């Protein structure tokens, strides 16, 4: 195991826009809003930033290719800027690039900005591979079944397998999933930056129209516009900028090699990349007992079933036992490990280039004790989980943030 970047990089400033159907904001507006908040939060000047990364998935319908939209919008003069993309996990990629640059000594202070302007499409859902953009290429388009937006169906199939494997009837399974969405909706009501801010009930979830059987409307996250930004600095200089920087304890990514999709070994009741990224992240951070050590999480709840299996893949709940934790309120704001304290993708929607950084924003604020009515009592370690693709073919990043004094 390489030594990793634990405690070598600190976040010294973050910004996050309100997420939603922002008809009156462009991608550029969102980048400026998130960046200015981060800059102000860090208390530095723009000229202190030595390199920048922009994460953005559907550039074809918003800013266009390259990171020039970032440098021209923010007027980042003649520093290296790069665009990164890794499906829905793009946001964490920008932080990873900036963190590696700082950890390597290539620069002292770097910027990561994630943005997505999806609602300009004029259609519901994420951009479609067959008409809005040719993101899958003809090959993917010709041979994949749902050449528009396969995500709900591909995650729904995981619910079908999960229920079958653990002997849950569709009704029982749906009821368990409903509790996850109800929990996140509650947290969203406490967050002025969330897109959806309304309490829902289990009955609401169960009665909602089906999107991809067995998943209904409230089992799916929304689609929204938004941006988030992080400024990272070398850990040894972080306290020059603020008294409470937040340290990166681990940042790991795992990508599928095709075996889950093409080889019959995969059970479709978990996401293999999540498991691998989590194990490596716990090693990097030096976490032995995640269920005891992790204080809180922001995970990739694109669908309720995703969140359920994430609990198990992150080694928080034993295999097949996540239902018991859900039923016990383990992941609620008042529970042992609050999950989605900001409302999650469920309430924020999913501007894919920004979501990973949005998750980090909540963990960062919580660790600084600045989460307002959602504040979790004395958190030490916060975990973010950002997933791109679909259960049988995905890329997953797990990032663990913490205070300097954790372990001491």
């Amino acid at each position, binding site marked *: 195991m390489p030594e990793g970047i634990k405690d070598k990089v600190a976040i010294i400033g973050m910004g996050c826009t309100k997420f939603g159907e922002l008809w009156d904001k462009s991608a550029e507006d969102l980048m400026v809003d998130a960046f200015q908040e981060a800059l102000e939060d860090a208390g530095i000047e723009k000229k202190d930033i030595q390199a920048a990364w922009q994460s953005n998935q559907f550039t074809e319908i918003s800013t266009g290719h390259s990171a020039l939209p970032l440098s021209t919008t923010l007027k980042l003069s003649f520093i290296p800027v790069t665009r990164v993309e890794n499906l829905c996990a793009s946001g964490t990629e920008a932080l990873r690039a900036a963190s590696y640059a700082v950890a390597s000594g290539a620069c002292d202070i770097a910027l990561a900005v994630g943005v997505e302007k999806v609602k300009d499409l004029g259609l519901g859902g994420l951009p479609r591979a067959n008409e809005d953009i040719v993101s899958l290429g003809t090959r993917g388009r010709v041979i994949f079944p*749902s050449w528009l937006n396969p995500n709900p169906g591909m995650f729904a199939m995981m619910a*079908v397998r999960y229920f079958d494997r653990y002997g849950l009837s569709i009704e029982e399974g749906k009821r368990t999933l409903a509790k996850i969405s109800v929990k996140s909706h509650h947290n969203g009501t406490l967050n002025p930056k969330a897109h959806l801010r309304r309490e829902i009930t289990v009955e609401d979830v169960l009665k909602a129209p089906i999107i991809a059987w067995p998943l209904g409307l409230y089992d799916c996250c929304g689609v929204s516009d938004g941006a988030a930004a992080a400024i990272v600095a070398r850990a040894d200089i972080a306290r020059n900028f603020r008294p409470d920087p937040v340290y990166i304890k681990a940042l790991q990514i795992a990508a599928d090699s*095709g075996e889950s999709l093409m080889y019959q070994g995969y059970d479709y009741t978990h996401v293999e990349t999540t498991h691998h990224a989590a194990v490596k992240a716990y090693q990097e951070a030096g976490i032995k007992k995640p269920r005891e050590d992790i204080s809180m999480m922001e995970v990739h709840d694109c669908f309720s079933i995703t969140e359920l299996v994430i609990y198990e893949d992150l080694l928080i709940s034993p295999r097949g036992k996540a239902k018991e934790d859900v039923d016990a309120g383990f992941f609620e704001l008042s529970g042992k490990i609050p999950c989605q304290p900001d409302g999650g993708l469920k309430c924020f929607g999913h501007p894919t280039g920004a979501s990973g950084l949005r998750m980090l924003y909540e963990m960062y604020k919580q660790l600084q004790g600045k989460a307002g009515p959602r504040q979790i009592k004395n958190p030490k370690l916060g975990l973010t989980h950002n997933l791109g693709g679909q259960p049988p073919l995905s890329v997953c990043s797990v990032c663990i943030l913490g205070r300097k004094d954790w372990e001491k």
Partner: protein
Amino acid sequence: MVDIGITSYGTHIPRYRLSRKTISTAMGWLNQGTLPGEKAVANHDEDSLTMAVAAGMDCLERSEQMKIDSVYFASTTPPYQERESAAILAAALDIHTNIRTADFAGSLKAGTSAILSAYDCLKGEGARSILVCASDCRLGKPGSFQESLFGDGAVAFSFGTDGVIASLEGSYSVSYDFPDYRRSGGDKFVRTVEDRFIREEGYAKFVAEAISGLLRRYELEAKDFAKVAYPCLNVREHASIGKRLGFQPSQIQEPLLTAIGESGVASPMMLLAAMLEEAKPGDNILLTSYGNGADALFFKITDEIKKAKGKGSLKGCLASKKELTNYEQYLVFRGILPVETGFGGDVATTQLPLTWRERKEIIALCGSLCKRCGTPHYPPQRICVNPACGTVDEMEDYRFSDKRGTLFSYTADHITASIKPPLLYGMIDFQGGGRYVFELTDCEFDSLKIGMPIEMSLRRKYFDESRGIVGYFWKAIPIKE
């Protein structure tokens, strides 16, 4: 002399049936239909080509590793005016490329023309085994007699000299430029003329002329035949043609009008398949097509028919059906009624160099098999996906289209645009290994279960109207238990 004739056959009748009562309920205010029974209707993702592939697979499955030399496709409704359907058919069936392909088109007797050409080619030793697929998907205008009359279907025959089940003993053809049916330009619907004129001046005369010509040429009589078959454009006229020629009603093959409809080029071929299913060794059977004249063909059934017995596919096709109770849905399936499917914009351009390069992957559903560990892959890979193997470049082609599989998981996607929402798809585990996600078709959501057996079927995935490109790909169909 060596027997030349049919060595195997296969049929495909689309799953849906539209009762002619349903048509009159919808369109009776315009035109009261008189025909009884139901007609077979191709699913929204089927066309003459996909139906021919299904019939061809059915036919080849029954033959023992046949080496096909030529592939003929006969239809008046090919998917392209210019781009050979027989070549697409051969590619979909994963037949090697050193073959002759040809389309037979333009007339309802195109199927028997193809058979006669196959015979001549085999006789002249230009080939050893020829696959002939006949398929049609003709449209009558809503409210018309033709709408009720026409049905969809496909038939395939392999012809050769080994294992002949019915040897072609002779034929008699007549050709007339008779103006019964036509389509020109971009005509979607078959244009026609007064039914009585077609029936009396064309149909009855040409069929009779071909049959009596054949009897005369080979010095045979009606009683020498176990069965005679010819298409049915009119129930009464159909019966009286046979009667006038001296055939007993029991000799006349039931024309499938009430079960399938008049299936165009496929129609006489379908009747040939029906006769084969009931035939005994030594029987003589007589088939006549109708269309711009007529071809009469005379077959003698051999002992080999016993081996084909019990494998008959037509009865199975006829039994496995689902009623389409909604006339408007039929209109949508056949592209007659444009509907809002909830998405905007055009289909993105098809990268034709890519689809050409990856043709085996796309049109033949070929993946790769690791020669080292035996793992099948779809799509094909150069590096083995088996985590315990990982061998590089030791792959051979591996065809999935004829492999059965099981449904590992599935969903009903209500937000993806579909002509028949919800879009059904599932993860398929193939017998012998290999897994991928495929759309499911010819089934209802309520019938799906984890672990149910499936087989593969070539379908239309999309149609790029602005560029005239049909995107074909394979879907999974639950196997009828």
